[in-house]
């Protein structure tokens, strides 16, 4: 190797000329320039791509929150007044108006001309009541002689060629509609729309009513009627002038060879008993599940009748509720699905009332009537409520002539205050395709709007707030994107998903962070360099395991294994760290010259052996602890063995209400709170059996699976009090608190005494203190557990609960494994990059390697370790495959460790393939993505701020 002599440096420093000879070549400049351009373009494209994704996400999500887009359509006067019932075709071209007398007018909505008229009455009878179910198009007509008839009332559309339309339609311009007047057999005529030169759409009424059939009981005209269909079943409720209520199962038979269908009524007895001082109700309704009747008075009083089986049992009053504390009802309608009543009142409110299943507050059938939501429009009286036939969007008309559109489920007001008429709105309804609204005034005017509804079922409230869904006991956060029936409410609350994401992340981090960070500290500060060279890449390789592999390992291998060896798994969380600590204390007992001879590789192997030994110990200690702690109590065994007596009703706790069957959780509550048991549908008390009966019970329970000690049965609430669970939960925190107290207040004094002792004696004293600490931990935990149990708290209500095989514990462990490598690697790098001179300074000052690690290296590396943890956090929050496969994906909101959850990412992965593009579901999934992004963004920004704070401290290093 040649060296530059001093002369070279000297000549370069002195001579200007020699420097100028060093010219940069042109192509170097060109490459430099090119590289600069390429890098800027690349960087710019990256920014554009990221922003583009964000913009796209937002653009997909924004329509969810928009109201309806309303455009005025045609409006005119027509020769048909006081509509009681209106039907509109799918294309908003024609409408059928039925007035109070049952006169039907077919109207061309283009210009208001009445095409034809007919009647719903049958010969010699007058129409006195009518009702139409919008989803099926079925009508029920009540007549003045006390008979009813049912049938279909719709406008049907048909596309035909030029040759098939009558001559009257030939002159219609393309895109316009005209009428074909009735002629000959065609009693209704039609509204005809010319779609193109050769194609016409013919809109004809379909009025297909059965023969009237006489109601059996009561006298006078039918004054109120309501009809529901369920599949092919049809059932109606009718009230006659004398206040008698009839419930009829309807069957319609069509005679062979055509003719008017025959209506057959099979009545179900209604044991009507109006509340005191009440005459006949103003409305009657039958529920969509066909076994409840709702009688409604104008002041809001509602009486509910129930027949548990309409084929066998009569209807009996079960509940009377005041749905309207003040004001009075002006109009009422049954919401789609037949389970929610919409009540319009005099002061511009619409109330949605339904039967909430609530075993505690409910009446004898475990349900009660509640008003779930009240929406206030303008102050004018609500005069009409139009229910859609496809979703729960409702059109409301008021006395001031205004029309409003809203969705009672999501509370979303899509459009409000659409001015329709001078006078009151007599009837209104959403167009069948939900692309418009039609409103009619009493004075014979109408108005049509074209409406883009957007996504009525989604609002900020429904996504992030509690909503009181039909039939549920209280407002709640529910995510249920698909329902069994079209008429069901769709529940898009993201809160359970956000909760699931947080739960997954928290448990994964609880498992991963201590392991990864401690492992990083160990490798960087204590491990022999040769061993480290092998260990670090090995752990880093774990990061390359595809998460789907981890996921199915979790689901197929780990989950069943954890289920089978649950006591051992739980026990090893305590035993393994304890084993390590015990080993550390034992190490002190060995004389130092002996320990120094042990090679580092062997030391590591010994640690593995200790870990394995601890696991082995846990595998026998776990089941032993299970047998000792998680077993049925003496009394529970008596009851299981049949030694019990029923309690009198007075002793039955109030919260039980009228429940006939109890969930395991409710049974547990009964046991823990009241000391009572639930057996064969009855509340019972344990009775101490005689000696020989005891032996008999022991014998019979010996082979009884449900009486065997088992932590899983305990978790499910099968037996046992809260104490063992509290004990289990308290050990960790108590151990932590005690060791902090110990090191803060006891340690120093203790160590000063140790200074004067022999090394071995000191080590023995240390060990004794450690054992004492363990005993104290167990004692304090037991005491705390007893305290908490006696306070009536049960861990099975919060972080413990019924056991599912695919649970958070499994996911925590496996997802922990997925994030450990990344946290480990970055933490290790951060620790290794702490300048060696700081370590030297600390060691040179006489610090031990542990003191150096904790007092010097760790604080300096804190920002790096914090970043590592945050990156792990981000990975855990966004992790998909593991949670999809190993959690069960139930969108619950419980902290229960032994239950699954549903995360945002898993929801997107599972549901996006089946969500139609552009649908609310599709957009909600995009919103899930956006929320996830926002969560990680907030997290990372906070993390960065914290990290910068840490870093400033050691910036000058």
């Amino acid at each position, binding site marked *: 190797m040649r*060296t*530059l002599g*001093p002369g070279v440096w000297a000549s370069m420093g002195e001579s200007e000329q020699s420097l100028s000879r060093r010219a940069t070549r042109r192509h170097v400049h060109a490459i430099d320039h090119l590289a600069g351009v390429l890098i800027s373009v690349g960087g710019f494209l990256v920014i554009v791509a990221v922003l583009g994704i964000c913009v796209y996400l937002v653009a997909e999500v924004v329509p969810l929150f928009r109201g309806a887009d309303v455009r005025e359509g045609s409006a005119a006067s027509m020769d048909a007044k006081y509509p009681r019932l209106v039907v509109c075709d799918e294309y908003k071209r024609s409408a059928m108006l039925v007035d109070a007398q049952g006169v039907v007018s077919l109207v061309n909505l283009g210009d208001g001309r009445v095409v034809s008229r007919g009647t719903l009455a049958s010969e010699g009878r007058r129409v006195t009541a009518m009702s139409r179910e919008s989803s099926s198009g079925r009508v029920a007509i009540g007549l003045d002689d006390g008979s009813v008839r049912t049938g279909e009332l719709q406008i049907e559309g048909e596309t035909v060629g030029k040759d098939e339309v009558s001559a009257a339609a030939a002159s219609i311009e393309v895109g316009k509609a005209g009428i074909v007047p009735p002629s000959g057999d065609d009693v209704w005529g039609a509204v005809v729309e010319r779609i193109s030169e050769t194609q016409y759409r013919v809109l004809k009424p379909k009025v297909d009513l059965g023969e009237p059939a006489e109601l059996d009981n009561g006298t006078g005209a039918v004054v109120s009627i309501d009809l529901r269909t369920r599949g092919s079943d049809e059932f109606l409720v009718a009230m006659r002038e004398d206040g008698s209520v009839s419930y009829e199962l309807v069957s319609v038979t069509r005679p062979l060879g055509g003719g008017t269908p025959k209506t057959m009524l099979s009545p179900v007895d209604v044991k009507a008993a109006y509340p005191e001082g009440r005459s006949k109700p103003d409305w009657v309704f039958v529920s969509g599940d066909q076994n409840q009747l709702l009688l409604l008075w104008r002041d809001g009083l509602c009486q509910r009748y129930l027949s548990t089986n309409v084929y066998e049992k009569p209807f009996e009053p079960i509940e009377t509720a005041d749905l309207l504390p003040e004001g009075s009802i002006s109009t009422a309608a049954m919401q789609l699905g037949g389970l929610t009543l919409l009540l319009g009142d005099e002061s511009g409110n619409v109330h949605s009332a339904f039967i909430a299943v609530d075993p505690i507050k409910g009446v004898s059938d475990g349900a009660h009537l509640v008003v779930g939501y009240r929406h206030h429009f303008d102050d004018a009286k609500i005069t009409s409520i139009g229910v859609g036939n496809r979703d729960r969007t409702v059109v409301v008309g008021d006395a001031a002539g205004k029309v409003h559109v809203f969705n009672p489920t999501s509370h979303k007001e899509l459009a409000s205050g659409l001015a329709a008429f001078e006078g009151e709105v007599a009837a209104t309804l959403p167009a069948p395709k939900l692309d418009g609204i039609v409103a009619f005034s009493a004075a014979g005017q109408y108005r049509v709007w074209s409406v883009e509804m957007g996504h009525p079922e989604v609002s900020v409230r429904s996504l992030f707030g509690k909503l009181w869904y039909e039939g549920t006991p209280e407002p709640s956060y529910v995510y249920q994107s698909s329902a069994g029936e079209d008429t069901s409410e769709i529940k898009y609350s993201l809160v359970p998903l956000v909760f699931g994401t947080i739960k997954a992340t928290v448990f994964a981090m609880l498992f991963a962070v201590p392991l990864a960070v401690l492992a990083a500290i160990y490798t960087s500060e204590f491990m022999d*360099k040769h061993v480290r060279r092998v260990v670090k890449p090995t752990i880093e390789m774990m990061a390359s395991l595809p998460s789907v592999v981890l996921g199915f390992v979790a689901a197929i291998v780990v989950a069943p294994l954890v289920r089978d060896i649950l006591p051992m798994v739980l026990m090893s969380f305590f035993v393994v760290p304890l084993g390590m600590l015990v080993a550390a204390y034992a190490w002190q007992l060995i004389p*130092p*010259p002996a320990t*120094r001879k042990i090679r580092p590789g062997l030391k590591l192997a010994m640690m593995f052996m200790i870990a394995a030994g601890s696991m082995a110990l846990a595998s026998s200690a776990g089941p032993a602890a299970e047998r000792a702690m998680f077993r049925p109590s003496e009394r529970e065994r008596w009851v299981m063995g049949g030694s019990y007596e029923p309690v009198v009703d007075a002793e039955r706790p109030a919260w039980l209400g009228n429940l006939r069957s109890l969930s395991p959780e409710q049974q547990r509550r009964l046991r823990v709170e009241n000391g009572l048991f639930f057996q064969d549908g009855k509340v019972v008390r344990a009775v101490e059996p005689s000696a020989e009966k005891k032996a008999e019970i022991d014998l019979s329970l010996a082979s009884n699976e449900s009486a065997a000690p088992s932590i899983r049965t305990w978790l499910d609430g099968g037996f046992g009090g809260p104490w063992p669970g509290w004990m289990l939960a308290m050990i960790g925190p108590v151990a932590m608190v005690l060791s902090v107290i110990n090191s803060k207040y006891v340690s*120093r004094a203790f*160590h*000063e005494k140790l200074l004067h002792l022999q090394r071995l004696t000191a080590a023995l004293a240390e060990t004794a203190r450690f054992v004492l600490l363990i005993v104290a931990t167990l004692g304090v935990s037991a005491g705390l557990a007893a305290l908490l149990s006696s306070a009536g708290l049960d861990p099975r209500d919060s972080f413990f609960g019924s056991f599912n095989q695919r649970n958070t514990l499994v996911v925590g462990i496996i997802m922990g494994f997925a994030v450990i490598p990344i946290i480990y690697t970055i933490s290790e790098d951060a620790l290794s990059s702490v*300048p*060696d*001179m*700081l*370590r*030297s*300074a*600390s*060691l*040179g*000052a*006489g*610090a*031990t390697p542990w*003191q150096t690690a904790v*007092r*010097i290296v760790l*604080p*300096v590396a804190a920002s790096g370790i914090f970043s590592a943890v945050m990156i792990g956090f981000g990975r855990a929050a966004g992790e998909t495959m593991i949670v999809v496969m190993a959690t069960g994906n139930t969108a619950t909101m419980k902290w229960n460790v032994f239950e699954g959850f549903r995360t945002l990412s898993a929801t997107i992965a599972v549901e996006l393939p089946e969500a139609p593009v552009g649908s609310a579901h599709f957009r909600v999934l995009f919103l899930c993505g956006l929320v996830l992004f926002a969560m990680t963004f907030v997290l990372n920004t906070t993390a960065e701020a914290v990290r910068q704070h840490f870093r400033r*401290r*050691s*910036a*000058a*290093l």
Partner: protein
Amino acid sequence: MVSPVESNSVPSGRVMIRPMAQDRGSIPARVTMPASGGDGGATPQVRYPIIDAIRRGEAVESRTHESVKLEDHVLQIRQFCLWYGAAQALHSIDMPVARGRVTALIGPSGCGKSTLLRSVNRLNDLIDGVHVKGEMILNGRPVYAHDVDVIDLRKRMGMVFQKPNPFPMSIYENVVYPLRIDGENRRSVLDAACERSLKAAAIWDEVKDRLSQSALGLSGGQQQRLCIARAIVADPEVLLLDEPCSALDPVATLRIEDLIHEISERYTVLIVTHNMQQAARVSDYTAFMYLGRLVEYGSTADIFQRPTLEETEDYVSGRFG
């Protein structure tokens, strides 16, 4: 020693330097290439028989003046050898260190003076593949023995490094760190110790109003004096200074040198320096090392004015190195 080792000794010398990033950058280019079979040509070789013998790997006897031997010795280094893996870095060093005096180690880069210093508090143990032979005795107790607790041993010494290395914590905490790790938490004790050692390190007046501020905000010279304060807070038996001024400007250097003078009244100081003037200014005794061997060791006055070897004379006067 056979001759292949000799040519190896130069790279191994670099290895010696590497762990603590000592010396790097502060050495003139021409002294980094001393041997390489003698083609450097910068130094006439015939004049230095002992240096040549060392370069050839032959054992030489070091000249230790009688004046040193007469002193009371706090540290005895006897036949001390040290290897980094297969490369030997120190060759049979025999060197007593006088109690209550400042002893300077001088010599060209890679001569093992830092290694020797770091052997005293066994910081070299941290480096892979280091093994030693011979013995060191500090105040009658062996440094290298099986039953020595290294942590306790280090507690008996204070060390200051080439680059100021305060911990990223407050000035106060920096100074009392050695006491803290010994479990001393009584505020009064710590306060007193902090003030005492900051005063001894002549930095008290500059920092007394900002003890709770980060030590990293101090200037380089202040940081180094802080490190000295930290090194003496626990009353060490020996204070080891590893080129404490090489990263400082001349003014700060001067202050540190004054400080060394002051603290030498209370402590035994062993200082490594490559600055001959500094050695002459601050030390009572000076040891000249070359390629892992002690060449000449005597009182500073003798070494600088009346050295017995021509090599030493030429080195201290800058004619060789």
